[in-house]
């Protein structure tokens, strides 16, 4: 039982990690709180479903295509909503991205008319057996893919020119621009990267859960819990916090009751914001006078 809970916690934690990693990185790059990020998760899953169902393309083509299109829409959102509001007060960006999230949610609602859809399974449904326990192959895939993606991301950020440029912008935008890095371009690419991660999380998680228009909203709340917990200022924070939250949620759900899962998440957020607003792994920054 405990092993099951832990395993499920790691699975869900992987999803939280993928989405929050993109979100936090995008936030650090542009300074903008993207309330649209959860919708990217939903869009990835939903586009995969639509492309498969409507055009009858094989899943091997649908899914990468869905991920690409979602990545592009993330870039569009960045150009439209975030870039234009760079000089506006903080909350304008939040409102604008929430509004775009509403637009996407309503568009999806127009199509689904409130029904939830079942996503096609792309792995054989026979449970894998290991040490006497049953695991759904989809869940194993999620964990493996997350580990691969995080490693790839780390390699990308450390070793490639573009990755280093992105890190430079995140760390000190003015200095990086003075060094000749096109900040605007890098921010756009960072958003694209974040959207791709979010979309991949959506595509990975969709066969496990049903696809409906409110997936994005649910994920947005979880993303912000994880980001606050892990620290908006750190890169590793969302990873650690994502797994922590996933495991904690499942443990609470298993041992106490599933009702209290959400309350736990928000209690954690409040506690962290009161005690250590920069999160468990965030670097504290003092206001400059």
């Amino acid at each position: 039982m405990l092993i099951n809970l832990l395993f499920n916690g790691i699975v869900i934690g992987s999803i939280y990690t993928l989405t929050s990693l993109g979100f936090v990185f995008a936030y650090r790059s542009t300074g903008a709180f993207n309330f649209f990020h959860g919708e990217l998760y939903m869009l990835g899953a939903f586009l995969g479903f639509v492309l498969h169902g409507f055009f009858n393309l094989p899943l091997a083509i649908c899914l990468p295509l869905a991920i690409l299109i979602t990545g592009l829409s993330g870039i569009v959102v960045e150009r439209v909503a975030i870039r234009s509001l760079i000089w506006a007060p903080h909350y304008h960006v939040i409102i604008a991205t929430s509004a775009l999230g509403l637009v996407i949610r309503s568009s999806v609602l127009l199509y689904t008319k409130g029904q939830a859809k079942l996503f096609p399974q792309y792995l054989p449904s026979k449970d894998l057996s290991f040490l006497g326990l049953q695991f759904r192959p989809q869940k194993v895939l999620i964990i493996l893919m997350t580990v691969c993606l995080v490693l790839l991301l780390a390699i990308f950020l450390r070793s490639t020119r573009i990755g280093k440029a992105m890190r430079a912008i995140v760390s000190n935008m003015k200095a990086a621009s003075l060094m000749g890095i096109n900040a605007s371009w890098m921010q756009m690419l960072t958003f694209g990267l974040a959207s791709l991660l979010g979309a991949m999380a959506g595509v990975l998680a969709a066969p496990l859960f049903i696809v409906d228009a409110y997936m994005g909203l649910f994920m947005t709340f979880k993303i912000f819990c994880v980001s606050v917990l892990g620290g908006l200022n750190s890169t590793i924070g969302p990873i650690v916090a994502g797994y922590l939250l996933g495991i904690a949620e499942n443990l609470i759900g298993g041992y106490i009751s599933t009702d209290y899962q959400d309350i736990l998440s928000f209690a954690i957020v409040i506690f962290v914001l009161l005690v250590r607003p920069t999160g468990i792994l965030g670097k504290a920054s003092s206001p400059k006078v």
Partner: protein
Amino acid sequence: MDAGRKANRYEFILDKSNIPIVLLLLVPLWVKDSYHLQIIDIIGIYILFSISLNILTGFLGQISFGHAGFWGIGAYTSALLSTKLHLPFCIDLVSAVGVTGIFGFAIGLPALRLRGSYLALATLSFGLIIQMVLFRWVSFTNGPNGVNDIPPASFWGMKFDTQVRFYYMLWCFLLILHIFCKHLRWSRIGYAMQSVKTDEIASSMAGINVVRIKLLGFILSAMIAGLSGSLLAHFMGYIAPELFSVDASIIVLTIMVLGGGGSLSGPWLGSALIIGSSEYLRFLGHYREIGYGIMIVLVLIFMPQGLQGALSVVMNAVKRFAGNVSFRNQKPV
């Protein structure tokens, strides 16, 4: 130039900007249909609600993403006191205002050290927690079923149970609050709030007690939100936790931004536009929400001052034309 300095304090009460509000007294003479009056009443309640957010976010610059939490506290306090304890309207109104004010203080304290995104997250969590508590504490708040049969507001035996009567009671509250906000904005506290909004550190160095101003802002804002919630409960006769969701917080924030944050006419214009369009365009279904979202983004990009900005451009043009004010002395509406 000191745009708001008045010769004596009574000039705030007899100001020119009261004229449109006094003209609103005549509305029920034209609009007789109770459906339309109901929508206008709801707009009025939202105006009160967005005035409360305007004080916190517009004047003081503290972003609040969970303002519906205060609304819910006020509404539920009023509803529960009048249904379970059968207290008269006056008492449950004042209690709602008081209780919400206390919550405002409780939220304001931790909010003192949070800025920007963190404050947004904290207030968002507050709103969500209030909604969750309202949902799940079934023994106290009746859970998802909400509170039914809330008696209509009544003062000294006169019941405000029709739309018209409620309209006039609402009008009194709105007029008083409008004068209050005007007075607040151009007073020492108002200037202190604007200063804190612009630059907190510089304000504290200039001698402003930032802690006191922020707490004052939170308490005041919460109290007015509680007032609005209480009126909502007595108007609708029925409240449920769904009303006080993040959506409601985002709606009132949108109203404030679209109307023009930090201004006096902003909440009025914003509420009229957004609540009016959301009611009258309801038949469009999901297309309405799509249009709504696109409109918000467009207004935010191209008209960040909101409707109030457009209105003050027009008013200043009129004043310039009349020779009353030079190009430099224009003030926002």
